């Protein structure tokens, strides 16, 4: 049999398997929740990384763990790969469907199954929206701490898959620090519980591997989460500086003084210009850099820490300090920060958002190097990022109408990431690897590192059916290049922001 003929045979076998899968699934689930109409499928062709698209052949809108089990078992029977998706807000293509594959959508699993305020925990289904949980436990003075920027639309199942952070993770940690247990439907359709209601459990802590595994080790069907106590006091300020270096050094000084702020964000001039133009939040666009600092906790601690922060900002050369006197002023400051990515559209018609991490101590130096790289490429870069944990989000600006500009911007974005790794940082602090950064994994990890990770993946998914092609370099992915960032519909409407 020739190669072409063989491929045709494989393809027709696959088409037959898919048809049988769809028919079988429609006998198990209400047919209206098994989507096969191309017009409906198009809506699921990408997640928050809209530059990558693939149309699935089947979208399954599951409403229970058992429906996930049925779907996965059927997929196994026909040897079909599948991808899980929550709200689809991920920024690295982790929930990008497989072309003509199966997409299992958990966004209808939105029940909060239990709230236990005495023991500071809650049990939720994976489709529960991040901020809905905080709202549900607010009457008890509690909240769910991880606060990714998309928290009003992103699902907790997606947060588990991506190990989501947020502006306040400097003090409160990431999703992995708040997940006590996960019930997971494994890639073979079996169900297990990793972890539980307590902080430790018997045997290996495989919950640690599952959180942040980008949906490659199974599909989460229930999550036991730790709840946090709402701080009784919050103080927020914005400090303007005449140089990026002075602002960066002040970040180091605050941390070195033993203060762990709830949030510590930084803007450069370009970012300030864009944010202020978009929101009128009171940021000074003539400053070279600004810090947004927030401390929270018990009143006694907050007052002491806040005094230290103010003093260090002054010592660091802050030319102006604006303190939020009430919740309105505070939310205005945050509105300016949260609008930053969408506001970059005011600076240029095209921009690429990068997500890299550097050790805090080299923050100023790296920002200088980013500026130098940008100059070499003849491009501008706006910086607005989580300075407290060294998580950079350079916005590489370009003009799509200028020939070669886009390609230069892509090169610059990649070089910035390489710079992060050279300085001992990471290729991603919160957006994940997905399809976008699979090729850059080798700049951070050795072949041996990846080989051991692959062994872990093989333990969970020996048949490579669960979100294949994600999180690892493959020839197919590495032949592709990251695309231009295009805001999602939700971002364009101002519903969510990309930080």
């Amino acid at each position: 049999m020739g190669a072409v003929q063989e491929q045709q045979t494989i393809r027709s076998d696959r088409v037959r398997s898919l048809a049988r899968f769809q028919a079988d699934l429609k006998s198990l689930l209400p047919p209206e929740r098994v989507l096969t109409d191309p017009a409906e499928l198009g809506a699921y062709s990408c997640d928050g990384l809209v530059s990558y698209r693939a149309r699935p052949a089947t979208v399954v809108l599951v409403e229970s763990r058992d429906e996930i089990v049925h779907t996965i078992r059927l997929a196994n029977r026909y040897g079909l790969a599948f991808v899980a998706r929550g709200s689809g807000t991920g920024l690295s293509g982790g929930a990008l469907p497989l072309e003509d594959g199966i997409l299992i959508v958990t966004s209808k699993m939105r029940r909060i199954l239990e709230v236990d305020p005495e023991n500071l925990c809650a049990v939720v289904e994976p489709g529960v929206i991040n901020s809905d949980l905080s709202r549900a436990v607010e009457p008890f003075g509690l909240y769910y701490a991880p606060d990714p920027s998309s928290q009003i639309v992103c699902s907790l199942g997606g947060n588990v898959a991506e190990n989501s952070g947020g502006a306040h993770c400097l003090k409160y940690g990431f999703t992995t620090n708040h997940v006590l247990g996960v019930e997971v439907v494994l890639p073979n359709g079996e169900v297990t519980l990793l972890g539980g209601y307590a902080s430790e459990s018997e045997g290996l802590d495989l919950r640690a591997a599952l959180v942040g595994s980008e949906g490659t080790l199974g599909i989460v069907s229930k999550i036991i989460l730790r709840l946090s106590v709402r701080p009784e006091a919050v103080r927020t300020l914005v400090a303007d500086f005449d140089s990026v270096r002075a602002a960066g050094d002040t970040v180091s000084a605050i941390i070195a003084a033993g203060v762990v702020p709830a949030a510590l964000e930084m803007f450069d001039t370009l970012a300030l210009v864009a944010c202020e133009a978009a929101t009128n939040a009171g940021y000074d666009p003539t400053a070279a850099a600004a810090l947004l600092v927030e401390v929270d906790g018990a009143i006694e601690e907050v007052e002491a820490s806040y005094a230290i922060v103010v003093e260090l900002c002054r010592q660091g050369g802050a030319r102006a300090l604006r303190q939020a006197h009430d919740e309105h002023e505070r939310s205005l400051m945050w509105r300016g920060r949260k609008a930053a990515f969408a506001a970059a559209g005011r600076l240029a018609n095209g921009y690429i958002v990068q997500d890299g991490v550097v050790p805090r101590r080299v923050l100023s130096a790296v920002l200088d190097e980013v500026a130098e790289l940008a100059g070499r490429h003849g491009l501008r870069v706006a910086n607005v990022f989580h300075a407290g944990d060294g998580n950079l989000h350079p916005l590489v600006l370009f003009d799509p109408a200028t020939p070669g500009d886009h390609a230069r911007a892509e090169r610059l974005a990649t070089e910035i990431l390489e710079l992060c790794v050279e300085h001992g940082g990471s290729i991603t602090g919160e957006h994940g690897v997905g399809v976008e950064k699979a090729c850059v994994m080798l700049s951070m990890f050795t072949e041996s590192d990846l080989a051991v990770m692959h062994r872990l993946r093989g333990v969970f998914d020996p048949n490579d059916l669960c979100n294949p092609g994600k999180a690892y370099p493959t020839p197919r992915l590495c032949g592709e290049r990251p695309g231009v960032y295009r805001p999602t519909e939700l971002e364009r409407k101002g519903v969510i922001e990309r930080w």
Partner: protein
Amino acid sequence: MIEVVDSQAIEELKGRVFDARESAPRGVAIVGHGSRRSCGRAVEAGSTISTAGLLGWSHAPEDMTLIVGAGESISSVQERLLPHRQRLSVDPPLRTVSGRPDLGTVGGLVATADQGSLRYRYGGVRELVIGARYVTGDGVVAHSGSQVIKNVAGYEIAKVLVGSLGTLAILTDVAFRLHPLPSETFEIVVDNLSLAAACHLGSRLARQSVSLSALYHWDSSMVGRVEGEGLATRKLAERVARSLEVDLNDLPDGDGSVRVAIRSGDELSQRFALVCGGDDLVLRVACRSFEAHQVEKLVEAWCEPRPSLVSFLGSGIVDLRWDERSLVDGWERTSLGESVRHLRSAFPSQWWRQVPTWARDVVVGDEIVSLDPNAVALMRSFKAALDPEFIFERGRMGAWYELKS
């Protein structure tokens, strides 16, 4: 990740692993200072690999991160961080090696997840580990994680190694997140308090915004620790004490002997670490954050001889402790084993989790009832994936763990 242990030491270690594979039928024990050898079940080992020579140090004070060789001692780590007013936020039980007090090595701490009372604020050891380098059972040297606090690239295998009792790989370098070393410490002590009352008060305290560093109940006393800088810390401690006094009045079974006191320093917590590190047989149970009293009820119903209980409130960890010297008779040990088997089956399966124990085979037996078969299968498969010949710490996790699925 920066590698702090030199390449020659790594090559030698790989050589030892290959040698151990050659004599695989006998297995190999991985030992640092040997202070935590009694954690888990008895190990079948024909040879020993010492990790005490895996030394190295890279501290980034501005980043509050530390990469350290697995053989470095915890005491020395804390001493070297002291001038920078930083610490690794662990206070493991103080154990004894050859008659000397010893906090053990970094590798031992990570392998046994041996956190103390600071788990209340900083979580377990897993929350502090941000990266690691390790050698697998087939001699592969690999990294996981990073030296930066924020990183989501790759599977967090470094965290899976935490508490794995050395059964998966030999740790060589570990990257930690550090915290500021507080200048002021106060302990708020409530004496003559039942565990049930402590759980009730502790839960109420936790729902206030008071940021305790530690909260535990032991020997009829509940101790809360407040740490921080300057006058604010004293004010906070006083507020905690006032709040407890108010809450005590609401206790249904409160009596006049209950007293709240504030003490400067952490003398009680140091004594606590000493007690926790003693030679007792310990079975560790994990329940919901403030339900240790439910464990106590089951213990009273099922356990003879009766253990003393040490409860880490807020994390749900309860240590059942038996003085080994009092268990002199064979029948008593058998009785204890029976009690624990009853206890295990009495625990609601999703609420109670038995975690690494310091009780050895005398108490725990071989069966495992708190994990479902699919979780067991995954753990066995991962063990086989990283240590294909089952040479590392054979038997330590239990016979259930070392069967190829």
